[in-house]
């Protein structure tokens, strides 16, 4: 799949932003006033910034509001609803915390639930696609949710929670890569089933329909990034989980040093997740590539 920067930016930033909103909604950290203001500024900057980035790849962003109509069947529509509800509910909750020094607990829990639901619906947009076996498995929502929770805990300064959550996310990531690498083969789809000619012999794409490229090849058959996939996986894994864990696990006395280390851990995690998301798209094989003798 073509790794569109807008979609990588969206899933990375909004995943982290909604993860932070989840912990803020549960009162972790229990902040009010100016400190709360800064936390919500960061959370809204990430989640809203990500959502805006996602509209960049649309052919007609001015009609994006129509995407709220089909929640009964479409995960993309459901994602839109969850995001708007989460942002509105958490907005009210934030007003209480920032301006009135109040924690309206029920509202916070509701906002936290919708924040997590937003990440889940995002992951289901990819998971539902049978055409991309690497995404069509339970590990995809597990990966999106565990990444969001780990990043959110890190950003919310919940170190005791961040350590196990980062470890879980790291394990899910490794499983996703291992199962993903054999997903296309295990799906049973090949040029034989694609053409219905497989029972007659070995099918080979002899001649493509056109000499040039087309939308399908540009969008679904992206092979450029696969060459360095192994190295990029190592980089993604070290930045997203390894380095942040090294930075937050050792006990530190000074609060200032602690904050600097936490900031570095968040930035490293963000860069790592972005790299992992790039691989998520670049390594995904769409079955339509088979018709072109490619994958």
């Amino acid at each position, binding site marked *: 799949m073509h790794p569109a920067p807008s979609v990588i930016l969206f899933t990375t930033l909004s995943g982290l932003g909604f993860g932070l909103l989840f912990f803020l909604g549960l009162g972790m950290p229990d902040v009010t006033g100016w400190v709360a203001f800064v936390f919500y500024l960061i959370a809204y900057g990430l989640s809203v910034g990500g959502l805006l980035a996602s509209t960049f790849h*649309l*052919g007609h962003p001015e009609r994006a509001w129509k995407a709220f109509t089909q929640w009964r*069947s479409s995960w*993309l529509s459901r994602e839109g609803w969850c995001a708007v509800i989460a942002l509105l509910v958490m907005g009210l909750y934030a007003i209480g915390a920032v301006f009135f020094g109040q924690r309206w607990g029920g509202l916070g829990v509701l906002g936290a639930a919708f924040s997590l639901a937003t990440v889940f619906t995002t992951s289901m947009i990819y998971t539902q696609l*049978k055409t*991309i076996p690497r995404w069509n498995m339970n590990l995809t929502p597990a990966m999106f949710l565990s990444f969001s929770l780990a990043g959110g805990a890190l950003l919310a300064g919940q170190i005791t929670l961040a350590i196990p959550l980062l470890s879980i996310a790291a394990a899910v990531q490794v499983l996703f890569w291992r199962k993903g690498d054999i997903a296309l083969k295990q799906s049973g789809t090949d040029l034989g089933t694609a053409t*219905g*000619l497989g029972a007659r012999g070995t099918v080979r794409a002899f001649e493509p329909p056109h000499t040039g490229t087309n939308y399908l090849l540009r969008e679904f058959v992206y092979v450029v990034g696969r060459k360095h996939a192994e190295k990029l996986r190592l980089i993604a894994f070290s930045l997203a989980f390894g380095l942040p864990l090294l930075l937050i696990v050792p006990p530190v006395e000074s609060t200032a040093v602690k904050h600097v280390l936490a900031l570095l851990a968040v930035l490293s995690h963000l860069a790592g997740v972005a790299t992992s998301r790039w691989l998520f798209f670049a390594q995904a094989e769409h079955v339509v590539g088979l018709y072109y003798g490619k994958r």
Partner: protein
Amino acid sequence: MTQLPESSNRKMGLVIDLDTCVGCHACVISCKGWNTENYGAPLSDQDAYGANPSGTFLNRVHSYEVQPKDGPAQLIHFPKSCLHCEDAPCVTVCPTGASYKRVEDGIVLVNESDCIGCGLCAWSCPYGAREMDMTEGVMKKCTLCVDRIYNENLPEVDRVPSCVRTCPAGARHFGDLGDPDSDVSKLVAEREGMDLMPEMGTKPVNKYLPPRPKDQIEDQIDILAPLLAPVADEPKGFLGWLDKTLEKL
């Protein structure tokens, strides 16, 4: 509405005969010709006369080589367009309701004024039947020439999809695949018409007729062959000397 209809009264679709198709691409050209100037936005081209031409097509013809375990390889031309699936994933993923399947005849269409160009329907289609138009920013797909098949301004003979009307080999057939007594249904039954990627669960309406078995060359067809003297495999004279010398080097 992007929920699929419970069932469509009729299942209009194509039957494509892989035995007959000669791979001339006439259906590709006539499809582009008709559909660029009728229903919906034109099918644009980018850099049409430059070094990297590319454009929107609703129908493309691939060619595949099938090598059986024994016997000669076979070349099969393979036209591919929207299969108007009964369980069309491209319809249910659409967030705006632009992508829909008609109850009355099962045709899958895009309402271009509602399409936001997110591309998710193309992602969900295993067959590559949908292409985003780069100029209009909306999704284009085969309409089964919905503006021809019911068009009473056209002579009756022309009230079939453009690709079917054009095919010089008669490899494309159009009709109601929901009616077991229709000509196309009988053809599918007789020739064991097949689905593409049935494991995807899309239940395509369009069917493909597999190539018929080819004649086999008998063991010996040339009665003079045994009488022909075998060609000498040991070179003599100058060539023999050259062969030996080169062998030694």
